[in-house]
């Protein structure tokens, strides 16, 4: 039986053209730019100075506050400057510039590729080590993992959900990881399980990746109470709330966290990073990135050092095609369009997608014909057509009433709209403004 979530959802063409490519190591670039804000929460504070020489894996910036994350050097070399650089956000933000000298790793990192199966640390130590190693959610939201693992008092995690859905079209980085690093992912799951103190584990994988399901199912047999579940292909199943609904049929309450229904969810990539952080003492300074596009010569999955410019990835995949009209960091549904290829790869960047010119422009906006398709595809049970017009009219009270804050920005509404209306553009704007109002209300007057 295949699991899926009940409400809304769409079926965009999958285009997983890079799924056959094995993970290849990308050449270490001559210089890297490591943004200090690669995670949700406060930017990290640099602990190195201009002119310092750092080793690969050395801490260069410390998380500032509880919801923040450490940042490590991804190459060894000299810190050229600490300055602003345009990152994925499209704005200039503080970053550390390192000129690569060599690839000399920090001595504390265990570079032995053999699988380490003994988990020696206790729950509390695991969580703080994960924090030290700068592990964040690699599915895209980049929420610091140690924060997620610290279950608030009075709540209890019952199920650990592992997200191998990869519902975004084109992307295959998680798929490649599940094929090649299944054992490590499973060990990572054991570590997370120990940290949370939960028994039950469900790994959710969409059934357009039968080889990944097969691989992980076989490995899962070695462990107790780990279930690998096949999921019906439907976007946005990789959304945390949708996945939890699909696998254990519980709905995360509006404004609540998954742990409110006893679930904690991690991406397979995060599970792998957790394995490396705990068993190999290796900080998060590289990740798997899919480089793909219909006109690209060699769509591939690369292991990339954080801070590598996007241009290096495209070069390694066969060069920038002549007809490129849009470069997207992430998938086509939720990814961010890039203004240039000089932008560095960050922890949350799961793919680089090149769209040809004829696919990169939007269509003409037509009047809303009230066909209600947006309402029927919304996975959160919202009314996008209404939210858009309320947002255009600055009606923030109504927006809040209509649950604009529940929007997960999956883009299903904009995708499906026959009149090609920019529903999500305005909903996102309304959400940001309502969010501001709510925050100012919370602050004591």
């Amino acid at each position, binding site marked *: 039986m295949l699991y899926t979530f009940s409400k809304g959802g769409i079926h965009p063409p999958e285009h997983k053209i890079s799924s056959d490519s094995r993970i290849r190591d990308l050449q270490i670039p001559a210089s890297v730019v490591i943004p200090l804000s690669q995670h949700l929460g406060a930017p990290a504070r640099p602990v190195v100075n201009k002119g310092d020489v750092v080793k690969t894996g050395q801490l260069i910036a410390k998380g500032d506050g509880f919801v923040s994350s450490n940042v490590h050097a991804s190459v060894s070399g000299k810190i050229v400057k600490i300055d*602003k650089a345009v990152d994925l*956000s*499209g704005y200039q933000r503080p970053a550390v510039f390192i000129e690569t000298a060599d690839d000399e790793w920090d001595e504390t990192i265990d570079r032995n590729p053999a699988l380490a199966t003994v988990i020696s640390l206790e729950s509390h130590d695991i969580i703080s080590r994960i924090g030290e190693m700068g592990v964040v959610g690699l599915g895209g939201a980049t929420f610091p993992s140690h924060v997620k693992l610290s279950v608030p008092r009075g709540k209890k995690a019952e199920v650990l959900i592992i997200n191998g859905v990869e519902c975004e079209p084109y992307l295959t980085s998680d798929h490649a990881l599940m094929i090649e690093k299944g054992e490590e992912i499973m060990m990572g799951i054991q570590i997370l399980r120990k940290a949370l103190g939960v028994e039950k584990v469900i790994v959710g994988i969409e059934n357009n990746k039968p080889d990944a399901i097969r691989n992980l199912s076989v490995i899962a047999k070695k462990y107790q109470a780990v279930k690998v579940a096949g999921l019906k292909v439907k976007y946005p199943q990789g959304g945390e709330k949708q996945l939890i609904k699909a696998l254990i049929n519980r709905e995360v309450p509006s404004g609540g966290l998954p742990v409110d229904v006893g679930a904690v969810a991690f991406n397979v990539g995060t599970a792998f990073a957790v394995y490396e952080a705990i068993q190999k003492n290796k900080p998060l300074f590289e990740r798997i990135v899919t480089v793909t596009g219909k006109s690209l010569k060699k769509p591939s999955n690369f292991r990339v050092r954080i801070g590598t410019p996007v241009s290096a990835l495209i070069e390694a995949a066969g060069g920038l095609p002549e007809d490129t009209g849009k470069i997207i960091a992430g998938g086509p549904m939720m990814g961010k369009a890039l203004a240039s290829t000089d932008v560095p790869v960050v922890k949350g960047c799961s793919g680089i997608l090149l769209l040809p010119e004829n696919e990169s422009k939007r269509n003409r906006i037509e009047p809303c014909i009230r066909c209600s398709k947006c309402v029927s595809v919304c996975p959160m049970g919202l009314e996008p057509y209404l939210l858009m017009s309320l947002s255009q009219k600055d009606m923030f009270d109504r927006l809040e009433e209509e649950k604009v804050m529940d929007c997960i920005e999956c883009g299903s509404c904009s995708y499906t709209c026959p009149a090609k209306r920019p529903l999500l553009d305005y909903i996102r*704007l309304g959400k940001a403004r309502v969010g501001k109002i709510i925050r100012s209300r919370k602050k004591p007057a």
Partner: protein
Amino acid sequence: MTSTILYPVIALSALGLLAAVVLYLVAQRFRVFEDPRIDEVEEALPGANCGGCGYAGCRNFAEALVNSESFEGLYCPVGGNETMEAVARILGRESTAKEPQVAVLRCNGSCEYRPKINQYDGVSSCAVASALYGGDTGCQYGCLGLGDCVEVCTFDALHMDPVTGLPVVDDDKCTACGACVKACPRNLFELRKRWKGNKKIYVACMNEDKGGIARKNCSVACIGCAKCFKVCPYEAITMNNNLAFIDSYKCKLCRKCVLECPTASILEIGFPPRKEKTSEGVGEARIEKEKTKGTDA
């Protein structure tokens, strides 16, 4: 025959009378007391409901005026001093005069000076574009040119210039209500002192990048060289974050800074044209720019 006409007329008249009586009684019974001065004050206000005073509309503002002790913090930028005096007369208070203001756009990065490095293809809204990224030029502080300010201006004082791609303030129509100041996600509008003849001198740039980067992205960017700061005899210019700012209340319109600026980012508007003579080589940049420039922003 008469009955078919007469009866409906009688019946309807009776019904109308009855409804009138009921309405009158209800109006008497459920009357809400309201300070009659609120109506008077509202009458004196411009009635544009622009929200420039910070209230939702003129009615709200009138209520606030009547209920407040003094006019501290309450000012109608549209009606100006005249209106405030009228209100003061109604309420029997003293009004505090304020100098008239006008909105200026602190960006001069037209297509010519600030080359596009990508094409924006989202909805035509500065707020949406600004939330998305730094903009379609290298400057992440400058005007996005999508016209949110034009949209909110209730006085028809803002228009997009199709050539420069920047909004233009119509000084005569601008009431300094401040709607554009709030609407601009880049905070490019500033309310400045309104000089006679709409003379203006201001730094038309908000770029806080270091000089080289700013200059690379926009040829009329303020590079933070502080030459204007040094030359200003009235201490009207302050430097902050690689950016010069001219305080319109301290400025005496001497125009020394304009000549000094190497990137011509300080604009002078409403002055008679200068002679094409430069003293000691300064102001070359300005003259160069003026040759290629059409109408000023």
